[in-house]
């Protein structure tokens, strides 16, 4: 299901996420590698953004910067007025649990917990919702993604698509305004990938701000905005082009 919107923000609105001058340099035995070389981007509420680029373009690194999973060498990231760069790990974890939902390429469910327990876990860590409410909410989320019947199964007993769908439900556990997905369909077959992507589209329609990293240009075309990276730099941003067209 493609989204209708190519532009989702109004001129003059305050960005939800501000990425300013972000640079990331990795050090290895072979020397230094600059993964991100001065990225400036603004993301607005309700956007469904696809970040594309070839391998090594820096798209996953950018996602890690926004989620606070990794830290930039230079630059600043502000989300909903909170500067997250420079936050310590503990504060970052708390903030992230309450404000971001992350979907990984390899699902990253805890293998010894059931699907239901995996979905409840963020609520548990962040102490969101009353104890009794958590299980109900988790079942509801799994129901929303069509997996209520598998709630008591361990991840190993389910398919890749079901695990990824559960990961999405988990990302929604604390009702964050922002979802970051790093290659969410990268490990899925075409049909399952389509089903997962449609889920994202639905969430976008429901008002979530979604940033999805993908190497698949066809998928990116179906988002409302495409940011293309190459060698750590933004080469194109469909929102800019749309602004120019106006």
């Amino acid at each position, binding site marked *: 299901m493609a989204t209708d919107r190519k532009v989702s923000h109004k001129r003059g609105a305050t960005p939800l996420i501000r990425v300013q001058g972000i640079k990331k340099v990795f050090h290895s035995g072979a020397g230094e590698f600059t993964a991100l070389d001065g990225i400036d981007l603004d993301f607005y509420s309700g956007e469904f953004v696809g970040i594309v680029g070839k391998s090594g373009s820096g798209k996953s690194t950018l996602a890690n910067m926004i989620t606070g*999973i990794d830290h930039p060498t230079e630059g600043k990231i502000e989300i909903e007025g909170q500067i997250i760069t420079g936050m310590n790990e*503990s504060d970052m974890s708390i903030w992230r649990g309450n404000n971001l939902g992350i979907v990984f390429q*390899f699902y*990253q469910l805890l*293998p010894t917990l059931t699907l239901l327990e995996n979905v409840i876990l963020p609520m*548990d860590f962040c102490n969101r919702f009353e104890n009794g409410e958590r299980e109900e909410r988790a079942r509801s989320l799994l129901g929303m993604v069509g997996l209520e019947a598998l709630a008591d199964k361990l991840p190993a007993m389910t398919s890749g698509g079901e695990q990824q769908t559960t990961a999405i439900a988990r990302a929604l556990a604390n009702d964050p305004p922002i979802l970051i997905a790093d290659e969410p369909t990268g*490990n899925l077959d075409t049909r399952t990938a389509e089903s997962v992507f449609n889920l994202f589209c639905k969430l976008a329609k429901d008002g979530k701000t979604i940033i999805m990293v993908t190497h698949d240009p066809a998928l990116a075309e179906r988002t409302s905005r495409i940011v293309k990276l190459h060698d750590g730099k933004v080469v194109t941003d469909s929102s800019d082009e749309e602004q120019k067209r106006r």
Partner: protein
Amino acid sequence: MNISPRWQKVLSDLWKNKTRSLSIIASIAVGLLAIGIIANLFFSLNRDMTSSFKSINPANVQFTTSLIDQDMVDHIQRIDGVKAVEGAREFTMQVLNAEGNWDGIEIQSKNYGAAQIGLTTLLEGTRLPEKDQIVLSNNKINTLGVKVGDWVTLRDSDGNQYKLQVVGIVQDQMLGTTGSTGGFFLANTWGYVDHATLKKMSVALPDYFNKLYITVKGDAEQQDLLKQIGTSIYNDLEKNGVTIIQYSTRTPTNHPNVSLVNAIVGLLFMLTFLIVFLSGILITNTLQFLLTQQMQQVGVMKSIGATRNQVIGIYMALILIFGLIAFAITAPVTAVFTDLLMKFLGKTINFIYSGFHPNLIVMLIQIFLALIVPQVAGMLPILRGTNLSVQEALSGIQQHAAISDSWFDRQVNHIKGIARPNLIALRNVFRKKGRLALTLISLSMAGAVFISVFSVRVSFMDYISKIGQYFLADLNITLSTSERVDEIKQILYSNPEIKYVEPWSGARALLVNADGSSGDSVSFTAMPNGSKLITPIMIEGRWLDPRDENAIVLNDQFMTDFPDVKVGDTITLKVNDHDSDWVVVGFYRLVGNLGGLSSYVNLNYFVSLPGQVQNHASVYRVVARDTLDSSQEKVLAAKVQTMLEARNIKVSGISTASFINDSAADGFNVLVLVLMILAILIAMVGGIGLTGTMGMNIMERTREIGIMRSIGASDKVLIRMVLIEGLLIGWVSWGIGALLSLPISRIMSNNLTRSLFGSQSDFVLSITGYVIWFVVVSILSVLASLIPARSATRLTVREVLSYE
């Protein structure tokens, strides 16, 4: 669902990976088990030895005298300070053993129905023999091969034989209390008979006694009081014309084998700290393994809102549960092992084991260690593991980890000339140096102690064989009376199997104190000048010279009991009722605390003293022409006895060289057994540590394994690589352990012998220990490597490459 997911994760992690959980629990349990057994032994041994000895109301003062009647016994009772006195008749006979040879047996007769002093503990049957019946002590019952209801044959020095029915078997804790007959381990079987049986065995003057067992009034723990009362009794007996052959005192809580227990306990404590330390290292390593496996999950939890403290809390809870499970398993196992060990020790060291009593202090120690040690040991891995950024945790790549390019690594990387897969295995050994160091510490220490146990054992065996140097003859013949040396030699030399005979002599001797009062008994042996049948272990001074006259050499116990006596001093001994002065020329090492005071003098001078008969001797040492084994010695002993009795020479007993060596070895075998148990525990710690390390190493290289599989490496090649890695670690640890064993075994050996004998023994290295540990560590290395290697090779290439 009743518990929150984070605690559910704790329980699931525990249950779902049983192998890993068991490995961690085993690491904790091994340390707990060792501590539990050691602590229980410490409390139980001291408690039971002291209380069981006290419970038999042991004699505080003992005299062996010339024959005395009941009136004299009653008279002693009235001496100031005497609480109770019992008379007994004791003498040596021979008993036919299971192999058809004659062994020595000490016969005792007293009024067992009324006896209150030195009570025996009934094991089977009855303690009260009647006519033609005998009760036997259990210390050497196995050699007799009899049980209650069977008949034994006794033989006196005249060759008369008597058949008595065994009606009871008892444990007699008084064995070895006089300290002058080699102690408990060298003691013969004891047989307890009644007065009617004495009469039947034609014992002269059966109504008379030659042994007094006395308890004192007041605080019997005061050794000075015992000596004071003992001296009063001694003087009174002398005044009444009684000849005193032997005299000793002992407090009621001073079990005769307490020095052996002290040695065991001292050794155990020495090893306790080592085991706790090694167990801590093992737990650290194993928990590091757990955290490494869970690193991605840590990253995921942090990515969905968990703080570092929350993650730490999860793993601390997991470790707490491991500790509680380890304690729950270990507590009953500790009880079982302690019970078994105490039963064995009770029988071997001759005390009454009162049964296992759960000790609150021991349990508290175990609980404390179960809860605290794993938390402390796990803290570093937990802090390290939770300190990683989410990115590092998820990717497994530490951005700021130092890339190792040390001189050592370059040397390893430059090794050439071996097949590349083997080269990879060699390099893999040194990839994680911290982990390798921890593994090597625990495995090397385990190896060092394991090897040391063998060296300590060999040192003991060497010591025992050196003790045997004091009895170089094949046979030691004791006659009932002194006989003409020429006559005995003629009889013995008539047997072509006999090569050499030496007449020896012994006497009853008492130390004479400065105030002229009589002191402790001293075993006094007069040996032929320049005797070839003794090779002493000198500590100070010199041995007797054939030209010496009133020279005397004293044993190591003198140095402990009378530290003021030095080489060159003159001491006075009452030998066969006559005071004589002796110049101390040297001190020799024998069995220290376990054997009492002993001395040697030259026979020529001894027989010139008043009261001695020239050219007569009651002890003869015989050397056979050929080298004899144990059974051949017994055969020769039987022939010699027959020869002598045929010429109306009364034989009190004949002991063989192997009997002396075997008896002395019995006590040390107990120690060696305890050491071996500890060595096995320590080896287990090392083995579990290596298993954990290899598991971690393989797990971290799962992707590499997958890549190698994708480019042609077969299962066989991969397994071989892992085995080489494991074996290299094992062999390196063997080398380090072998070096460490040198000082450790020396320390262990010295501490033990100092506890037992009051002085250090010569240390002997055992090659056997090195060889056995090499085999053990090689097997451990193979097993520790094989399991993770096989698991890794079972994964498909697709699975391992998508592992991360």
